[in-house]
């Protein structure tokens, strides 16, 4: 999902080498041929400065997304309708925290410290996925996030398992393995309400789906013709499949799933196209996307404030743990 970084960055001239030494040119050439051969790049290998910078931005923002992504669902842990749903939701939110940690660790191999990354998040310099700036108003939102948001995330993340940067690819393999439970539990939760629930509960599910559908389509990033950094990402093997291709794949899968569930999507233009063998969908409101990315979504301020508060409130714990560890080391040395 969570990979909007490439689309929301300014153009920085790709990896066109500026004036460089003969040695750098040779390193660049070796790097290019390794990428062409489908080889993985490891943390200590030589890489172009812009490759490192782009990846650092993408992996750290991906990590931020996982951590901020704990907030909308965390909102419902204390109010889950049954003990079973509460245990499931706790496990899922804990997974998201774990995913954030895998990704921070991958990002750190690119030469940034954890504190630097968190500082970039807390100061508003670094972005996270726009989807987490929407509120979770009802219990059905938790199911809709699992089904649609995590469904879109999986669609987006599976190709990154083949990313050219190995530490990122390895983190993604681990994440994708765990993510499938997230989507299934969400669908299962909605299905129970649709099949065994009251009319009010069914209406609640439909209302949640109405609110999440369009923001989910935006998760894949701007249309291909407005995604100037995509080509460079493809060249580097960071991006494997285009935004529109992934979005279409998601729509095609979701339409079928919605039928099983018995809900509709809020798009009058959604119809089967016999010629393309895909579902056509209506125009996405990209002004909303850019507004939310730019900081003016329904919950941007609340999400960031919650993260900053958690970090600040935890400061004495981090310091105490470190002081204790230092004291123990001294005691052992004595």
């Amino acid at each position, binding site marked *: 999902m969570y990979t909007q970084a490439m689309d929301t960055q300014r153009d920085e001239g790709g990896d066109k080498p500026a004036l460089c030494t003969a040695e750098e040119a040779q390193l660049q050439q070796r790097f290019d041929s390794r990428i062409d051969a489908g080889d993985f790049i490891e943390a200590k*290998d030589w890489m172009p400065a812009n490759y490192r910078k782009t990846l650092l931005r993408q992996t750290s923002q991906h990590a931020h997304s996982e951590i901020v992504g704990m907030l909308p669902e965390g909102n419902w842990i204390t109010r889950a309708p049954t003990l079973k749903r509460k245990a499931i939701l706790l*496990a899922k939110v*804990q997974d998201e925290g774990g995913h954030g940690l*895998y990704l921070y660790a991958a990002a750190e191999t690119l030469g940034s410290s954890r504190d630097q990354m968190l500082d970039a998040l807390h100061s508003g310099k670094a972005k996270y996925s726009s989807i987490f700036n929407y509120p979770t108003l009802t219990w059905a939102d938790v199911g809709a996030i699992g089904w649609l948001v995590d469904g879109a995330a999986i669609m987006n993340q599976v190709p990154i398992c083949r990313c050219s940067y190995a530490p990122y690819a390895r983190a993604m393999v681990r994440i994708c393995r*765990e993510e499938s439970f997230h989507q299934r539990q969400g669908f299962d939760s909605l299905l129970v309400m649709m099949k065994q629930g009251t009319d009010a509960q069914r209406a609640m599910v439909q209302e949640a789906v109405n609110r999440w559908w369009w923001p989910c389509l935006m998760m894949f990033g701007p249309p291909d013709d407005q995604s100037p950094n995509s080509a460079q990402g493809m060249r580097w093997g960071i991006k494997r499949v285009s935004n529109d291709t992934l979005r279409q794949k998601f729509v095609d899968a979701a339409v079928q799933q919605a039928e099983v569930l018995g809900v509709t999507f809020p798009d009058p233009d959604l119809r089967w196209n016999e010629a393309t063998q895909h579902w056509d969908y209506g125009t996405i409101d990209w002004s909303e996307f850019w507004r939310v990315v730019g900081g003016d979504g329904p919950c941007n301020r609340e999400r960031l404030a919650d993260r900053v508060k958690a970090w600040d409130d935890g400061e004495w714990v*981090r310091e105490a*743990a*470190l002081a204790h*560890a230092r004291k123990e080391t001294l005691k052992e040395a004595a």
Partner: protein
Amino acid sequence: MSTDNEWPLWEVFVRTKAGLDHKHCGSLHAADPKMALQMARDVYTRRQEGSSVWVVRSDQIVASDPGDKDMLFDPAEDKVYRHPTFYKLPDSVDHM
């Protein structure tokens, strides 16, 4: 910005079940060894992926330099006689 107050980095190795090697699976920050083990359990074995965990301070690991790759590993390249397939034996005993 200062990173003096960052908890140190640890590498995590997990043995999935008895009989297998411990395998590197990632890293994490923790203040001390005990916390590193507990966090490794929480971060890397939430689905019974492990029966044993090692944690090692990252700064205690000595690693080869990727730049030395050729020097270190190429000498093995022309020693085909170290592989069993180098030896062509008569069919009747070739399963040896």
